[in-house]
Every structure is written in C-alpha cells, then in structure tokens.
C-alpha cells in the first residue's frame, strides 16, 4: 500500500499547505511537531492554518511516505500525552524539489502587476 502511494506521489505536485508544512519541518529540524509546525508557518508567512488542517495534512503526508514520525516521552503538562515528532523522508525532498521546479518554470518570464521580484530556485541562485 505504502509503495503504491509512493509511486502515485511521484506524479503528483504538493499542494500549497503540504508545501508549507514540509518546509516548516525542514526549518524546525528535530523539533517539528504539530504545535511548532503551525507556529512556524504563522511566524514566517503570517498564515494561520487551522489545527485540523495541520493534523490531516501530516497524516496524509505520512501515508504518502513523505514523513516519518516518532513519539517523545509523555509529559505532565500535556496531560501525560506524548508529542509526535516528524522528519522528512527522502521522497519528501524529491517532492519539494519537483514542486518548486515546476513552479519556477511557470514563473519564468512572468511579471505580475505588483512588480514583485521573480522567484529563483535555491539551487540555481549561484
């Protein structure tokens, strides 16, 4: 099942929320769990995703084999419940690259009315 989803995901681009969440996990390093992921996105972009959206997207990304998760030790301030941390699998890196590359190709030669600078992929800045 996981393999089928992985093969299917190779042909799919990430959605906007998936993209944001994967990037947030990358930025957070080893401290990425639902609360910090949501806060990171809000702090960086100003977007306030609902908690439900974050959980469902994390669940979907894990099903597609983009993420791996593990549980930390339970703590008293969390009512004895453990945190569920996330990290990217290699497939997620490939998906991010694929999505960004597609976006970059679409952006090339386009100038929006506001005059915002044209985005450049990280790997091609040099």
């Amino acid at each position: 099942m996981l393999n089928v989803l992985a093969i299917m995901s190779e042909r799919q681009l990430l959605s906007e929320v998936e993209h944001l969440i994967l990037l947030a996990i990358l930025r957070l390093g080893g401290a990425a769990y639902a609360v910090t992921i949501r806060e990171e996105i809000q702090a960086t972009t100003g977007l306030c995703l609902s908690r439900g959206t974050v959980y469902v997207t994390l669940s979907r990304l894990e099903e597609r084999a983009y993420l791996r998760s593990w549980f930390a030790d339970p703590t008293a301030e969390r009512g004895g419940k453990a945190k569920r941390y996330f990290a990217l699998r290699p497939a997620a890196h490939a998906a991010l690259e694929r999505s960004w590359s597609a976006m970059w190709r679409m952006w090339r030669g386009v100038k929006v009315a506001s005059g915002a600078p044209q985005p450049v992929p990280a790997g091609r800045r040099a």
Partner: protein
Amino acid sequence: MTRQRKGARFAAGIIRVFVPRSWRGPVLGDLLEEFDRHHLHRVWRSAWLLWQATAISARFLPQQLSSAGRAAQTFGNVLGAEARLAGRLLLRRPGLPLACIATLSLGTGATTTVFSWSNGILLNPYPAIPDSGGLLVLASRTRAGALDTLSYPDFDAYREHATALRDVVGTGAAIQRLVFTRDGHAPERLLGHAVSGNYFDALQVPMETGRGFRAEEDRTPGTHPVAVIGHGLWTRRFGGDPAVVGATLHLNSQQLTVVGVASPAFRGTLLGLSVDVWTPLMMQERLRGVALEARDDRWIIGLGRVREGVSRAAAESELRNIGRELEAASPIEDAREPALIPIWRSPWGAQGGIGPVLAVLAAIAVLVLLLASTNVATLLLARAAERRREFAIRMSLGGGRERLFAQLLAEGMFMATGAVLASVVVARWSEGLLTWFIPPTDSSLSLDVSVDGRVMLFAAALALPTTLLVSLAPALQTIRPRITECLREEDCSVSPRSSAGLRRVLLIAQVSAASVFLVGTALLMRSVQNAQSVSPGFTQDNVLLATYDLAPLGGPATGTLAHARPRPGSRASARASRGGGQPRAAWFHAAPHRTADRSGLRSAACRRHAGRVHGGERRVSGHHAHSTEGRTRFFGKR
C-alpha cells in the same frame, strides 16, 4: 489533571470517537499544551478546548469514514468466506442449530402472532378504507364517564354543524339480524348494518359492482328502500351474478332494491363482523321499528376525521358547544356529552373485547420469548465451552479475532434467518387462532388478520437482534481462549470468570420467567375454578338454553320463531317453527309450554330481556351469553 482541565475530559471523549487511534494522544496532548497558554477564564478555556476538539474531529471525519468503508468492505469479504465455512459446519452438525431455531421460533413466533393480531385489529382495522388510521369514533359520554351511543337527532346535529370534522358518517352501533326470505328457500338470517347515505362515498369504500348510497336516499324516513350487499352474500346466494344490481331483496318483510355490491376487501366497519347487507339509517323505522326522532333512543355512532390543522380536543370542544345548544333547544332527562375517540378505544366492535386479551397475550408472548432466549443462550454457552479448542487452533494458525467473530456472526445470521422464517410461518398458521381467546358471541367472528409487510418487518426486527444476541454473546466468550492450555489438551472446558457470570445471569432469568409462568398458571386455574363455582341462583343440572329472536320481525310482531340454540350436546336440538300471526305477547305466554311439548323437556321457562339493548351494554344478564338486540331466552329442564 487540574480543575481547569475538566473540559479536557469531554474533549478527550470527542477525540476518542472521531480521531484515528494513532493521532488521539498527540492531538489531545497538543491541545492541552496550548490550553495552558491561554490566560482566559477557565470556562472559556474549556469551551475553547471543546471547540478545537470538535473542529479537529470534523476534519478527520471524511478520512475516518473512508477508512471505515474500506474496513467494512474487507470485513464483508471475510464474512462471505466465513459464512461458507459456517454453512458447512451447520450442515455437518445440524442438531443444535435446529433445536435453537425451533426454541427461539416459539418465542418470536408467539410475539409475531400477537403483533399480527394487534396489527389487524388495532393498527390497521380497515385495510380497504384509505387513511383508516385517521378515523375517529363520534359517540357520547354519560355523566359517570362511560361511553355510550348517540340518538339520531344528536348525530344529525353534530354532522350538520361540526366544522372541525370531515367525512362524518353515521352507523348503527350494533349489528342487526335481518331475516332474508326468497321464494322456494328457507329464511336466512343476515348480518345487517344501518349506515348513513354518505357512508360509502365518504369512506371511499371500494365497490365490486353498482354503487353505494346517495345522500338523497337517506333524507326522509322509509322513502328509499335500497340496500348494498356484501361480497360474501353476493357470491353465496346470488352466484356472483352482476345482474343482482336492481334486484329486489326481501328483508324483514320489506322489499329493498340492491344498488351495489361491496368489494371483497371491505367487510364493514363493525370490527370482527362480516356484514351481509347495508341499509340506510332512514329505513330503520320500517326494518327495525326504531324511533328516529327520539333523543333518548341511542343506537348510532359516528365515524369521521378531524380536519387538517385542528386538534381532537378542539373538535371535541366544538361538539360540546353544539351539544349544549341542542340540549337547550330540546332538553331530555339523561343528557350526554359528545365524545371523540380513536377506533382502537371504541367499545363497539371486536376491539373492545379483544384489546385487553391482546395485552395479556402480548405479556405472555414476551415471557415465552424471554424463556426461549435464555434457554438457547444456555445451550450455546455450553457449546461454546466445547469449541474453545477449535478456536484456539484457528488462532494459533494465524486466524485473527475478526475472522472468528465473522464466523460466529455468520452462524448467528443463519440461525436468525431461520428464526425469522419460522416466526412468519407460525404467525401465518396461527392467524385463525385468535377466535379461541374470545368468549363465544351470538355472531360468528370474522377477523381479517393476515401476515402483511408490517408483520414481516416486525418478525425480522424482533428475531434478528434476539437471535444474534443470544448466539453471539455466549460465543464471544470463546474468542478469548487460553491458547496454550487448550492446545496442551489441558481442561479447556473450564470457563473464564465472565462466562460463569453470564451463565449465572441466564439461570436466574430462566428460573424467574418459569416461576412467573407457574404462578400465573396457578392463578388462572384458580380463577377458572372460582368462575365455575359462581351460583346463578338456580340448579344448573340438566338445564338447556335456547334463544329465540323476534326482533328482526320489526313493526307489529307476527310471532315467527326465528332462532333456537340449545346448549352443545343437547338432544333437544334447535328447531325453527312458525307461529304465524300470533301477537308477540301471546306468543311469549304460549312458547314455553310449546317448546317443552315439542322438545321433550320436563319443564320450560321463559325470560325476556326488558327493553331494547344496544351495543355498549352487550352483557345484559350475568351468566347469559351476549346479546345485541332484544332477545328471548328459554330455560328447559330435562
């Protein structure tokens, strides 16, 4: 958990139901972590927690539903495979399942039978009449609160002036015995029913041929001698000839023209009786000598529906106002208030007597069902102990609990299907047994009780869960076998504690139900003994009873002996003779001696019921049989 986190319990409950298992802990933990950061009043924070739990659950819901659908599909495939296995096992050892089905069918069959009777009598009494459930009975109430019939003037006033009611029709409260004579044939007693001119149209009675009455045929007394005959009489006496419409019918020495034949599905609105002939209310003066104008001669009940948007209480209130105006215009001594009651509460018809009988029968059927269920559950619990090794082997070979559950479910479904079918068969067989539970009456009962879709649905709704419960509950004990002990051929039949508890509960239920039955039976037998020992005030040895009904003659009595009914087994059999031309009073004086002479009786006495007795007071004299009309009874001594 601090006091501030009391709302967390509810949130945890919501999350537990809707969020996938692997996410429950982290989601609740995250919410509690953020919960402590809010510096709000604890009530608001609890509300926030509940709101978040609900919102997150709503996001997970589609995912949960689709995974539940996938799980159901998988389980369906497993169930199909296990059903084949269960079928093979049942065929190999059919004894116990068949015994269980037979035992359960006793309970579910008895309950379904009582329901089918209730359905035919109380829930759907007139299947041929559209929307018969909305029909109400218009009657009167005495000052003591007892229900009584209406006089014709009262009924006419209510029908004319009540705006809250529609489709109001009038009918005689009791069946009438009419003497039907034909040239060259012996006189025959028919069951007649007096109805208003709009009866067939307002109730939308289906007609086999011809028409119902017209309104103008029921306006002036005695001017329209018309009749509608029942399908039974039409086929029995007229060979189903359509030319009967327009033919003349001799009833109680009166000539009536047949205008139509009712459909076979319609037997009349006096529940339990199959009417042979309907005559207009306005013909009753000629046919039965009934006084139409007297306000204190009560013999009619109305049937009608409340108009849309009007409550029954409002309709009754309007009727009371009309009654008060009527009373002011023509006062009588024992005035009555109008009453509007549902058909099933009406004492006119079989439902009046059968309702309490059905309630008792329903209680008995439920007890039988309880006893049968506990019996089967005990049997299956014993069988479950035998099967522990079988399940232990399957589990050790990798069979999951869901597969074992599917097998047990399939076995239960087989038994449940058998129980449903058997219940319907029992209900179908026992359709006609209802009359056994009803005391004998002068008229033979004709109850239209049949197994229809509603009865089948009831049988399924009762038998399926009951059988599944009694078959699954004990068997589920075996899904948790101590595999190692069972496989080592140690004593596998030793029940776990939960199984012993279940057995104890079943035993208590069985003994309780059996005790109730025993005590009930003893009380019933004692009541029967008491009833038999009640003294009627005279020696009952060798006393025979015969009934003569002169009422159908109507008008001035001519003294025809219409009916005689001795007790069963009597050698003095019923004899019908003619007394031609004698006045009724003289006939009464002469009849006992003549009866004694002709029947070889030692002595004979005659008792005549005082006055006309109508429906609602059917038991007219203690130990005597029912009577719906003025009747004469003889006591003969051999």
